């Protein structure tokens, strides 16, 4: 297992990150105190965030291997192992998850008033599952955590959600579950084909037959495209976002959606390179469809959460576009854009949540003209909105720029087809911003609104910090992923050639 790199200074850092939130959640089961629950959850998630920092400082940017690896036998009879590790593809997502969780808890401080302990338990279990998904290198471990995530998320929407919470939570659950059934079939096939091993790195870069690859790719595609979500598999997303509590929306947008695109990079490209090459054009045009569709639909929304949800469809379309142009700029841009979307859209959902806490409405109409009374709030909102439509100097611009540069290298037509998406993004974000800050001549009376309090400002500041850090100095972030992507593409091109040649041999 030479794909693993064990770091002797931090032998158990990843397991600590995975199990600390879970342990925290278990303890909360025995405590019946709301105040304690809030502080405890905040403390645990903050501790996890701090403990995750050495991942970045001790990460070897010259190696494409899975670092900080840990490996234990788990179910010997089925050869299931507990193997975890991070590489350039997953490290940023792990960091995003650990850093965003304390902020989600801060954002729920006064928003959640009922069953606070249960809510915090759900959030902490979520964190364990999410981190596990990004770290797992055993396919069964991955699949268990992938499915395990559904339950706390289902509860977050179903218990603390809005008026149509049951509909939304069931829709979310069924969509994601349906997608992953085929994934399980694929996993079992891979297990059989690979000498009864679930070890993911060993499944990569094997020359499976083209037919098998196409079936596998379709299984992966269904699971991951629903998760991203790609057009036309997106309909669960607006429903879930609208009904979810703020923290749920933030986790959903910032982390959960990334699992789909992460899945493409981790599994679809290395395990089915020939099928990826074959089906790439369809995925690319589906991404374009998502970008344009998301943009137009967002433009028509009156509900702020729906607007941001549809904008996510567009933004994630850019991410899949970047992944499937299959060049360095595209994929690096896509990973960066995954992080950017997590930061910016997460922050936008927080902003909408802050308005909702005050007015108890997500309608754009009822939030018009608050600029005069909440200047601090609209300043934050303005920066995040600008970031969302890729204003130069902010994080999303860098991601979009790299993705489009990669796309232009692949095909000028394709890249030009994505440009209307960028125009639409500016249109719907500026429309929302204009309405919230200025409104029109018939604004409702907003003079009773209070501006942000210190807790809310502290929640938003880290997001703003990253908006500008990635916007003006993205190089450290790109360095983290660079070697892994270079390695991924090298291998991909080597095996894509072999597989396609083999396929042609069979066909003739």
């Amino acid at each position: 297992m030479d794909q693993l790199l064990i770091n002797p200074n931090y032998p158990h850092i990843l397991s600590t990150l995975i199990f600390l939130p879970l342990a925290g959640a278990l303890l909360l089961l025995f405590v019946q105190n709301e105040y304690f629950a809030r502080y405890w959850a905040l403390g645990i998630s903050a501790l996890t965030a701090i403990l995750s920092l050495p991942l970045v400082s001790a990460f070897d940017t010259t190696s494409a291997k899975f670092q900080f690896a840990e490996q234990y036998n788990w179910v010997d009879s089925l050869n299931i192992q507990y193997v975890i590790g991070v590489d350039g593809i997953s490290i940023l997502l792990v960091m995003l998850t650990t850093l965003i969780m304390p902020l989600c808890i801060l954002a729920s401080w006064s928003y959640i008033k009922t069953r606070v302990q249960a809510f915090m338990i759900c959030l902490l279990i979520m964190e364990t599952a999410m981190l596990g998904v990004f770290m797992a290198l055993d396919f069964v471990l991955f699949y268990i955590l992938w499915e395990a995530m559904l339950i706390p998320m289902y509860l977050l929407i179903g218990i603390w959600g809005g008026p149509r919470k049951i509909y939304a939570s069931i829709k979310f659950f069924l969509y994601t579950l349906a997608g992953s059934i085929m994934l399980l079939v694929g996993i079992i096939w891979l297990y059989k084909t690979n000498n009864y091993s679930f070890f993911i790195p060993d499944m990569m870069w094997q020359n499976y037959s083209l037919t098998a690859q196409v079936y596998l790719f379709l299984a992966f595609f269904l699971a991951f495209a629903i998760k991203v979500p790609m057009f036309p598999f997106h309909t669960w997303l607006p429903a879930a976002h609208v009904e979810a509590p703020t923290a749920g929306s933030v986790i959903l947008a910032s982390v959960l959606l990334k699992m789909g695109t992460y899945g493409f990079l981790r599994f679809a490209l290395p395990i089915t390179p020939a099928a990826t090459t074959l089906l790439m054009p369809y995925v690319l045009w589906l991404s374009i469809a998502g970008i344009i569709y998301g943009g137009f639909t967002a433009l028509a929304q009156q509900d702020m959460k729906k607007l941001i949800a549809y904008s996510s469809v567009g933004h994630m379309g850019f991410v899949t576009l970047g992944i499937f142009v299959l060049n360095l700029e595209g994929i690096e841009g896509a990973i960066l854009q995954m992080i950017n979307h997590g930061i910016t859209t997460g922050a936008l959902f927080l902003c909408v949540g802050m308005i909702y806490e005050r007015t108890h409405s997500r309608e754009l109409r009822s939030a018009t003209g608050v600029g005069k009374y909440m200047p601090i709030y609209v300043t934050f909102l303005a920066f995040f909105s600008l970031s969302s439509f890729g204003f130069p100097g902010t994080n999303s611009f860098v991601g979009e720029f790299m993705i489009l540069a990669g796309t232009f290298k692949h095909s000028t037509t394709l890249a030009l087809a994505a440009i209307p998406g960028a125009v639409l993004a500016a249109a719907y974000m500026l429309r929302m911003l204009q309405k919230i800050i200025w409104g029109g001549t018939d604004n409702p009376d907003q003079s009773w609104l209070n501006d942000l309090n210190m807790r809310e400002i502290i929640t938003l500041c880290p997001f703003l910090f990253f908006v500008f850090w990635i916007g003006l100095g993205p190089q450290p972030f790109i360095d983290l992923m660079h070697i892994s992507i270079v390695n991924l593409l090298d291998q991909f091109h080597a095996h894509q050639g072999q597989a396609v040649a083999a396929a042609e041999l069979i066909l003739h």
Partner: protein
Amino acid sequence: MDITTVSSVKLLIALLVPLIGTLGVMFMGKNENIREGISSIASIVLFLLVASMIPTVLSGKTLIFHMFSILPGVTVTLRADGMSMIFALVASSLWTIAVFYSMGYMRAHHEHAQTRFNACFALAIFGAIGVAFSDNLFTLYLFYEIVSICTYPLVAHHQDAEGYNGARKYIVYLTTTAKAFLLPALILIYVLTGTLDFAPNISTGIFPPDVNKSLVIMLYIFCLFGFAKNGVMPFHHWLPGAMVAPTPVSALLHAVAVVKVGVFCTTRVMLYVFGVDTMHALNLGIPTAYFVGFTVIMASVLALSKNNLKERLAYSTISQLSYIIMGVALLTPAGIDGGLIHIVNHAFSKITLFFCAGAIYIAAHKKDISDMGGLGKTMPFTFGAFAVASLSMIGAPPVAGFITKWNLLVGSIQAHQIGILLILIASTMLNVGYFAPVTIKAFFGKRPEGETYQGIKEAPLSMLIPILIACTISVLLGIFPNFMMQFVKVVTG
């Protein structure tokens, strides 16, 4: 870094001064004297900083300040060269004058939200200075977009239906063109050349010789339309729409800062990204000159039909902006000289005209030209300044505009383009046609029925003095053209 570039933190300070001014204005908004004091101090400091760069730039050196590295070949870097100085000097010097003027205007008119107004005004200047000092396309685009966003609150200032409509049109035109044309152009240029830095001189451009020609032509067209602040038809509608803003905004931004950002970017890209040689090789220059020639004539014709003084000035601006692009597009030495120097000449003359329009509105509450008959006798200084600035627009000696016209005419002859020559002559006639009646009506026309002009006198001194200063500079630029021309010569070599 070669010997002709000098790293200088002065550029950063100059950029930050308007930004600090903005913050000062925001936090001192309660006391209007302190607030306006901060604005004027910031404007003067900025002007002095820019002026202090003059000797270095004139000695043929370029000031550089590196700020951020985004990607290899994409940085945020500031530079001051001949071309930057032309625009930076104009923007910073006119800001000092405009601060006093707008103080007078806003107070006399009891406008609301003056703190926001002053803050956004300073932010717009921050953007304009950033554009002037951009060292590459990314920095240029960054500040270009900052100007778009920060001027929205100024256009929507009155917050009535008319204001919102004008502002919506404004932001839709500017951001849509930027996203639809500039963004893909920027990325494609990066993909083709691996960099977004400007070329060191105006001849070579940054494209490698073996590049796909039709792609470069497409990029050129994208850039021409992408910088829609340049007012080139058919993307000019935002400008008349933006005239709903208070007059100081129209004056400084829609006659100087914003539109000049547009033409500055356009010409900067024509000269320093595509380069004279590439433009010659792909035959881009002369078609561009004729294309914007249409805007020159058409906008003048439209100006003739406007009775609202500010609208007439707006269409005149559209026409005059295209002079600048036309001159540069001729690609002859005199043409480029004439185009670039018009950035300066038009700025001082047009701000005078807008200042006058504002003064007339404050003193007499008149917006329409047809209501101004005989008003010149009541407001002789204002209308006198208006007359002088009109002469500059027409291109009559000894006022600044003459220098432009002369160079453009020489340039069109150098390029052997009789058509351009005819366009210039026709547009001069049209200029006379829509400017002369205003002055003639004011001084020699009859008062409208029942109008006595009782109680009307010249606008307050805080408005009148800026008018006279801007007007005087317009004349001085015509008599001593070499002061600004030496920066143009640094560009053209």
